[in-house]
């Protein structure tokens, strides 16, 4: 249960963890200000996904069936990758420059920082998915039977999953070189196994079982269902698994934010 206290500023959860709306909004604004100063990153985040969709559209020009199958889900998969990279580097920087230690010595809950990052990156993901969606669905004739807003909504969910995983993995990286390697190490196998490259039922049994427990499988499956306009229970299960994975990864990630270090 969430409730407001007398000042109206702090929201308490019955578990005792407190979330300060002021600190969350301040953190989100700060992260957005950092992005605003880094125009090149902003441009890359917004231009690269539609450019890659366009590239794939023409690579598969001769085999129309393939692009019809993966084109629309891809729109929603890019935010996962981009937010994973951006978050793991951003959080690593907080750890190595001492700003994280400073924040942890201030009256700020760990959740304030995490939710603040989530808010800022969800906004960025929404813009990214919208730009990619406009280019894909209107300029490149990518086909989706389902509503475009649902693709964008799933893309934002995937961005949050990427953010939560990136945050968690940043704790295991000591340098930026290591942090970027977690993308091919942690994310790429999940994408390969998700069904994007080939249908999962045709995979060897062992790989199918592994893919059953990886969150990106459900992120991709959800996008396939949304773009094929196949709603129903499985879509809800996909959405729930993605949301649940975000919560679990954030909880584990918050445990890696230490007030006291060795």
């Amino acid at each position, binding site marked *: 249960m969430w409730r407001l206290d007398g000042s109206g500023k702090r929201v308490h959860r019955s578990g005792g963890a407190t979330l300060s709306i*002021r*600190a969350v*909004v*301040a*953190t989100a*604004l*700060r992260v957005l*200000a*950092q992005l605003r*100063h*880094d125009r090149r990153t902003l441009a890359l985040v917004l231009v690269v996904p539609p450019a890659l969709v366009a590239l794939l559209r023409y690579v598969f020009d001769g085999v129309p069936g393939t692009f019809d199958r993966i084109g629309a889900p891809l729109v929603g998969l890019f935010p996962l990758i981009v937010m994973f990279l951006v978050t793991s580097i951003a959080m690593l920087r907080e750890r190595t*420059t*001492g*700003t994280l*230690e*400073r*924040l*942890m*010595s*201030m*009256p*700020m809950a760990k959740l*304030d920082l995490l939710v603040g990052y989530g808010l800022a990156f969800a906004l960025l993901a929404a813009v990214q998915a919208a730009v990619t969606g406009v280019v894909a669905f209107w300029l490149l004739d990518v086909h989706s039977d389902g509503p475009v807003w649902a693709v964008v909504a799933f893309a934002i969910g995937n961005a949050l999953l990427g953010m939560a995983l990136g945050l968690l993995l940043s704790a295991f990286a000591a340098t930026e070189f290591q942090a970027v390697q977690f993308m091919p190490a942690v994310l790429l196998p999940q994408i390969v196994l998700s069904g994007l490259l080939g249908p999962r039922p045709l995979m060897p049994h062992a790989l199918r079982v592994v893919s059953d427990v990886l969150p990106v499988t459900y992120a991709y499956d959800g996008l396939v269902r949304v773009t094929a306009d196949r709603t129903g229970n499985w879509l809800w299960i996909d959405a729930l698994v993605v949301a649940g994975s975000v919560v679990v990864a954030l909880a584990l990630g918050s445990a890696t934010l230490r*007030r*006291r*270090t*060795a």
Partner: protein
Amino acid sequence: MSSADDELAIDIRDLRVRRGSKLVLPGISLQIAARTVTGLLGPSGCGKSTLLRAIVGVQRIESGSVQVLGAPAGTALQRHRVAYVTQAPSVYSDLTVRENLQYFARIIGAPADRIPIVVDTVGLAPNVDARLDTLSGGEQSRASLAVALLSEPRLLVLDEPTVGLDPLLRRELWDTFHRLASDGATLLVSSHVMDEAARCDDLVLMREGRIIATGTPEAIRECGGSTDLESAFIALAGPR
């Protein structure tokens, strides 16, 4: 003098800290009076920063107790009362001075009108809208110090705050430290510059993880049998 002047801002008993395999602090006890400016002096690598981190409550300790302003170090309560400036500037280098201060002011709940005041205190008024990565190292340190001043803390812990500053600004900052102390704050300032030591009310001399002397600058000079603090320090540290 009222009895409140005798109260302790910091009370450390038998503090042991291990970092990796190295026993950095093998068992330190230290008391620091409230409303003073205390200098923590010693060569680099002697454990000054580790001791400061333990006082702020960000250092994992092996044993011993650290009481700050009458309560254990590092609790939620202390995060409202203690401010800490690390040796390396802990600010966002991709934001301007003003954006950094606005962010940290919102986190600690300091009013926005504190921002121009602390900017003036550290002499960054001409650079307030410059991104930190375009400023010099000394200017970045001052921005980091400005963040700590936002909250008007009761205990201000500063790790080598005046490195790379020009002498005029250094003098102004020391005047600021004394003004804060006379307003009721306690300051603990680490330094390896001996001429700054003379400006402290009290000194703590450290060497190889141990405290080798405490006292006023006059007492240290007397005890070390020298008129200047550097020679006194060498005399107290003993032959290498």
